[in-house]
């Protein structure tokens, strides 16, 4: 009997030490969903090495044909607390508002963040991550301020502009922007155009609005939009654009200089990943700056001819936010909650990580403190692509100008309806203004049965 008792005791003791040992270096598993491998790269580089106890299960659902959003929607509608449902998920600019406005994303304060944690974030990026009531639900590590890129040679030849400061005066607001476009047309006999298309202008112009598309469940057509319609109509009728479209062959031909175009509205990523690789034909991945310049010179490209200015309005274009699954936050134990908070903190708020991201990849990050630190670092950021201009400084100034509060979950669909039902037919003279506006309203009403449209 004694033997048995001691055996049992020994077993109990052994078990208790074992379970203690497990508690000591307990691994938490977090499920992360995204539409690309970008965040996975950041996690592996900046998070996993310092947090070996937090295991990340990374799932990618590319958003071709809205596959990612549909996957998230159906998962969240049916079983948001299932093991395979995401704890933390990525939200792209096109649909971040849809999710922060829904009950699917958690209030970040529930994760243990405090409002002070967000103090140094760039306002536009914070605002876009808030729901209608101003609750912070998503955070970004990048900031994507936009600027106006222009061809220095064309500006000098036709407008007599030699410095970026002079150029900024030429595009200080939208009226001067159109005047400059007319001047350019006259000086070049209509050969050089101000922009490729109206769609390019829209990316910046939408930030001119005082209010977003929807206020208190009602469709709002901001007064600025009527000015926009007038402006685009003038530009179309006076032949001030190349009448192409964004992301088309015409657009890239403009970047290569084959179709002489003065201005492009592009954000941080647009400079590095769109304009630069398309500044001449035959630019391949992995080319050094010298090789790109040589290729551009050999093929009559535009490398080194670009300069950038803030342009008529501060705007932001694109970006990725991360949010936490509200259902998981509700059911998570303390360890898991802490792990979720830690992942979001390291990716989006931690100044050391953000600084590393900025230095390693040249990305423009979402913290003003880090941006300042990068600017103060006596690094040589003269960009040869911009003829020696320092792009970080201009983006830093532009970043705090954009008003992110006008963004809403309706934007993606309503922007496209505004373009197809109103802007394009009106500016091309297919409809008069009243019909165009009425058709646009009818289309919004048909798609959004729960909105008030007057």
């Amino acid at each position: 009997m004694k033997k048995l008792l001691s055996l049992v005791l020994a077993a109990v003791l052994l078990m208790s030490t074992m379970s203690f040992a497990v508690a000591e270096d307990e691994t938490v598993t977090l499920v992360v969903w995204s539409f690309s491998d970008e965040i996975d790269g950041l996690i592996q580089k900046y998070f996993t090495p310092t947090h070996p106890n937090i295991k990340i299960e990374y799932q990618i659902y590319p958003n071709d044909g809205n596959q990612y959003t549909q996957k998230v929607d159906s998962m969240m509608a049916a079983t948001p607390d299932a093991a395979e449902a995401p704890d933390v998920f990525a939200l792209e600019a096109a649909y971040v508002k849809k999710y922060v406005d829904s009950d699917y994303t958690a209030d970040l304060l529930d994760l243990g963040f405090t409002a002070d944690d967000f103090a140094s974030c760039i306002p536009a990026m914070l605002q876009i991550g808030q729901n209608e009531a101003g609750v912070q639900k998503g955070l970004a590590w990048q900031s994507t301020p936009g600027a106006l890129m222009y061809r220095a040679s064309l500006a000098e030849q036709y407008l007599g502009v030699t410095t970026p400061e002079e150029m900024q005066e030429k595009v200080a607001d939208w009226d001067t922007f159109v005047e400059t476009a007319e001047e350019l047309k006259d000086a070049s006999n209509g050969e050089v155009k101000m922009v490729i298309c109206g769609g390019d202008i829209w990316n910046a112009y939408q930030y001119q609005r005082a209010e977003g598309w929807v206020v208190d469940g009602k469709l709002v057509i901001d007064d600025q939009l009527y000015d926009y319609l007038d402006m685009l109509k003038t530009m179309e009728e006076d032949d001030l654009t190349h009448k192409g479209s964004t992301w088309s062959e015409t657009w890239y031909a403009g970047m290569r200089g084959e179709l002489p175009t003065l201005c492009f509205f592009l954000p941080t990523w647009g400079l590095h990943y769109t304009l630069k690789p398309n500044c001449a034909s035959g630019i391949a991945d992995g080319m050094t700056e010298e090789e790109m310049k040589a290729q551009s010179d050999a093929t009559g490209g535009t490398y080194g001819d670009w300069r950038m200015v803030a342009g008529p309005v501060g705007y932001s274009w694109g970006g990725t936010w991360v949010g936490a699954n509200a259902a998981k936050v509700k059911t998570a134990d303390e360890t898991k909650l802490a792990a979720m908070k830690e992942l979001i903190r390291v990716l989006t708020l931690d100044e050391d990580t953000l600084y590393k991201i900025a230095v390693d990849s040249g990305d423009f990050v979402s913290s003003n403190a880090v941006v300042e630190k990068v600017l103060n670092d006596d690094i040589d950021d003269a960009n040869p692509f911009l003829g020696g201009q320092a792009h970080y400084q201009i983006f830093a100034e532009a970043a705090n100008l954009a008003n992110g509060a006008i963004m809403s979950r309706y934007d993606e669909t309503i922007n496209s309806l505004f373009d197809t039902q109103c802007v394009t037919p009106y500016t091309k003279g297919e409809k008069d203004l009243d019909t165009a506006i009425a058709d646009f309203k009818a289309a919004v009403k048909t798609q959004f049965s729960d909105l008030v449209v007057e």
Partner: protein
Amino acid sequence: MQKAPATAQASPKKKRKGVSYDHYGYLFVAPFFIVFLVFQLYPIFFTFRTAFTDAIGWEKILDNNLIGWDNFKLFFDPSSNLFVSYWRAFGNTIVIWLFNFVPQISMALILASWFTSGQMRLRGQGAFKMLIFMPNIITATTIAILFFSLFSYPIAPVNTLLQQFGLLNLPFEFFRSTAASRGIISFIQWWMWYGNTMIIMIAGIMGINPALFEAGLVDGCSSRQIFWKITLPLIKPILLYNLVTSLVGGLTMFDIPQLMTQGNPNNTTDTVARFIYSQGFTGSHNFNYASAASIILFGIIVVCSFLLSQAMKDRDKGAKKK
């Protein structure tokens, strides 16, 4: 059979010896039935139910209220936006389908009669049949993107070509012209499907008793007379089959208009399937309207198919009476 239980009772051991494999059959067909029930039959019933609810948005997809025929009434109320968009899309669909179907069936008939003609004896038939059928193998997505880039504005292959041949002075904006946009979609549908129709037609013509053609030739028929008096009347069932399948395919046309024109310009290439998609999967997610619209489309297809087959049947009876 009656004896079987008795023997089983008498010697239970005997039963074990005879192993029956019958029930394995059920296991083999089970995957199909499970997939069919979960992914086809259940969604059909689910759609029917959703059409009678107020399910707007993902939150209400499962948790909703039955509201009777209200959703359907909107589609027949000329003052509602849904009425306007739905029937406009329906009209577009019919126009695009007709401009694809008429050339498709004509071309398929001509090619089929050439390929089966005993007099012509075309060489390299296999190669031609394969080439003509080929567009059907390429996915619609690829074709939509290909044609979009071909006909883009202002710099694109077609515009450049037309300008170089001196047919155009300035580039033409194909996707802002209703006729051109619909024409391109109809052309793509025609180009993708005439090979398929042709193969079916050839099969139909080969099924005709050769003695009839020989008799016609002996009686001095011209090849035109053989086509109109012998071939055409005898492949009527095949024609009907083609008409019905093409109508169903045409009314549910989605991929090319969605990927290439997104309904532009001014909703003139918006099709019924595109309307259903945009109601259910964009905007407020009006699942109820999308479901009701699908059911109305389903009803129209059923009625059309029934009328067509009925028309054919009556003619057959009439022919027999003569």
